[in-house]
């Protein structure tokens, strides 16, 4: 048992903390308040973060990245999210697919796609999975139903896949330069046996970006529509075998499993920020000559916020370590579920404490609560919980 961090981990943590403090926090609220959702991104911030290495952090050292382990990834995500959850997610969204490049791409593909990614500080990655009736918004597909699953059609035409259809709610959809796209390549079988993965650059002919979704929280982190009209993607951009995209083993720590840890670590950062804000208010705000912290109800809330946050931190770090050890368990899913409950309760308690100020709610606190609600859908709805429970109980 050892909860300490090694030097490299500590170094990255401090870099992220400094960046969050000096670069993210000062602009966080202003970006959140921009009315047009397509205008919230700040490329200067992305560039600065990229130069420090956050964008490319998980690409292996041999391949030109930094090769940080999962523990370090969790630390960085939490620290950046402490400054702004959506900004942290914009960086870590690139990691998700860096994992996939490392795990599933051929050498030739790696060469072709990694170099531009590494060289361009504004090169962010995305993944096209969700459709109107499929994807992260439709997580409980009936096995064997031919009508279920992705409907974005890909047909072979010589050396090209020809794509027609749409994707929805795609993270970084509006700004990414390369997408990992899930397409339907066989409609005669259930989608589990008829789906293929493709690497799709943003300048693919026949592809265009659609609208940018206007979310109530996580406004910096853009979700967009993707439209394909006879878009032509070379077969050499295909990942893995045809029709086999969903046959990847449950077992590896990349891709989806990273996604669970990612949300939990990000939530931890929001919790840290909420605790920080609440404690600072309790120590400094006085009501009729007495500091808030003298009130038992305020204290009990701060105790509870800290307790929930530290429990989440303990569990997040354990799961990160498990990933590094390639230990496969239900813990990643469980900690993701837990992060939903924790981040929402902790930010709402923070709001409770800010009630003592009166007047309109502090905008920063309001933002924390809005950002946290995103977890309901991404990490803690009943389907997300049933999935994990199913693995426990089987």
């Amino acid at each position: 048992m050892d909860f300490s961090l090694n030097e490299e981990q500590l170094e990255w943590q401090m870099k992220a903390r400094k960046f969050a403090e000096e670069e993210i926090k000062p602009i966080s609220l202003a970006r959140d308040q921009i009315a047009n959702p397509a205008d919230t991104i700040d490329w200067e911030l992305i560039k600065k973060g990229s130069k420090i290495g956050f964008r490319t952090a998980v690409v292996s050292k041999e391949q030109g990245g930094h090769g940080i382990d999962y523990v370090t990834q969790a630390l960085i995500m939490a620290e950046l999210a402490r400054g702004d959850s959506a900004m942290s997610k914009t960086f870590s969204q690139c990691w998700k697919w860096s994992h996939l490049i490392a795990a599933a791409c051929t050498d030739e593909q790696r060469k072709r796609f990694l170099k531009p990614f590494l060289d361009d500080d504004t090169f962010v990655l995305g993944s096209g999975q969700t459709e109107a009736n499929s994807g992260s918004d439709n997580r409980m597909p009936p096995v064997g139903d031919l009508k279920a699953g992705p409907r974005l059609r890909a047909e072979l035409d010589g050396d090209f896949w020809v794509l027609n259809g749409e994707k929805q709610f795609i993270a970084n959809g509006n700004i990414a330069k390369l997408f990992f796209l899930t397409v339907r390549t066989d409609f005669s079988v259930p989608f589990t046996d008829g789906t293929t993965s493709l690497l799709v650059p943003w300048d693919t002919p026949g592809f265009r970006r659609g609208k940018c979704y206007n979310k109530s929280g996580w406004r910096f982190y853009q979700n967009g529509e993707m439209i394909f009209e006879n878009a032509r993607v070379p077969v050499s951009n295909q990942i893995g075998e045809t029709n086999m995209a969903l046959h990847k083993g449950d077992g590896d720590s990349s891709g989806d499993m990273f996604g669970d840890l990612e949300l939990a670590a990000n939530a931890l950062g929001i919790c840290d920020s909420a605790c920080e804000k609440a404690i600072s208010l309790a120590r400094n705000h006085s009501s009729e000559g007495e500091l808030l912290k003298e009130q038992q109800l305020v204290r009990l809330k701060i105790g509870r916020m800290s307790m929930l946050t530290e429990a989440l931190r303990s569990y997040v770090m354990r799961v990160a370590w498990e990933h590094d050890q390639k230990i496969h368990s239900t813990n990643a899913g469980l900690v993701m579920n837990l992060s939903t409950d924790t981040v929402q309760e902790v930010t709402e308690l923070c709001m409770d404490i800010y009630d003592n100020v009166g007047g309109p709610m502090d905008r920063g606190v309001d933002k924390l609560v809005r950002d946290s609600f995103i977890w309901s859908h991404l990490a803690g709805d009943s389907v997300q919980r049933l999935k994990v429970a199913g693995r426990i109980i089987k």
Partner: protein
Amino acid sequence: MYNLNLNEEQIAIRDTVCDFVKNEITPVAVHPDRLEPFDPPLPSELIDKAAELGLRALSISEELGGAGADILTCCIVAEELAVGDADVASVLAETASLAGVLFEKLLNKEQRERLLPVFLEDNQYHIALANSEAKSDTWIGNNYHRSKTTSSQINTKAIQDKNGNWLINGTKTRISNATVAKLFVVQADTEEGQILLLVPTKSNGIKVNEVDRDGGWYIGSCGDVTFTDCMIPAENIIDSNAMDVFQNIGISCAINVGVARAAFETAVEYSKIRIQGGGPIIEHQAIGAKLAEVAIGLEVARTIIWRAAWTSDNKTSISEGNLTGLPLNNIAHISSAEMLYKAAKDSAECFGAMGVMRDMPLQKFIHQTRMFLHRSSGNDDSKLQIAEAVAGFE
């Protein structure tokens, strides 16, 4: 005799408002164009239409030309209106409840004859109570179970000149209906103590600043009102300084029920058409149980709010021995605020990603129930008031 049947007038007015909401309000209120912008203006045309139904003069007795509604009936109307649009419900409920108290109880004959015809004639005539100032010292907080200081300081001053006119100076903050009112009831301090003055909006020396509609953390209309040498004739003084007759907590709770009901109804509708796992999600135990919990929350909240409303209408009933003597308005507020925020969140969860999109109504419902939960000094203060009542502390 214990009886929960509404009378015919109550049922009739409820059905009327319900139809009006369905036909006139909802189609406008949930239109994406109205939902998406950060600070859509108050829907004045809807407020006017609702006023034409008589909802503005609801609580004025039939003899004087109103509908003679008690607080319970006002709650019923407010809930129905809020199912359509909480802003509309809030403006009308504020005017209606103030008008009843004012014209029925506070104004003298001359004042009533002067003002009532104008009020009844003009459907855009709204009323605002200008009482609150920057710092509220009525919260309990640290003073729980300590002897209370009774002096509630008012910084808005009224001085009588040699002609008997009152000269008002000072600022009232976060005044409901400030931006739509044609008449303010202003609480001011004089050398002889506090008074209430009738101040028409068109008087000189009044300046109304609308509180930022985005982030201002309010429902309906809200503004700061500054009086600079605002001169009011002597006959505009109200004979009584009975601030405690203005009591509409129950009504604001009812608005909250309406908002949560809108969320619930939307969620039920959606759950019947949304397919997951091969069937409508309402057929999943998990979603069914969640919606049941929301339904329970709504029923329980309405039940306790109506009890509080009825008790406000029948203040002698405590001595008749069938109530506990605890502040029922507080009980209704605390319990309904928590239940209804949860109801809105749970409803939104049924929508997946659509629950966080600004052009969809769910995020608005969550935001509004959240504001209700965190209005003024929040639930803790109300709890401590109940605690003092439990302890018999005075």
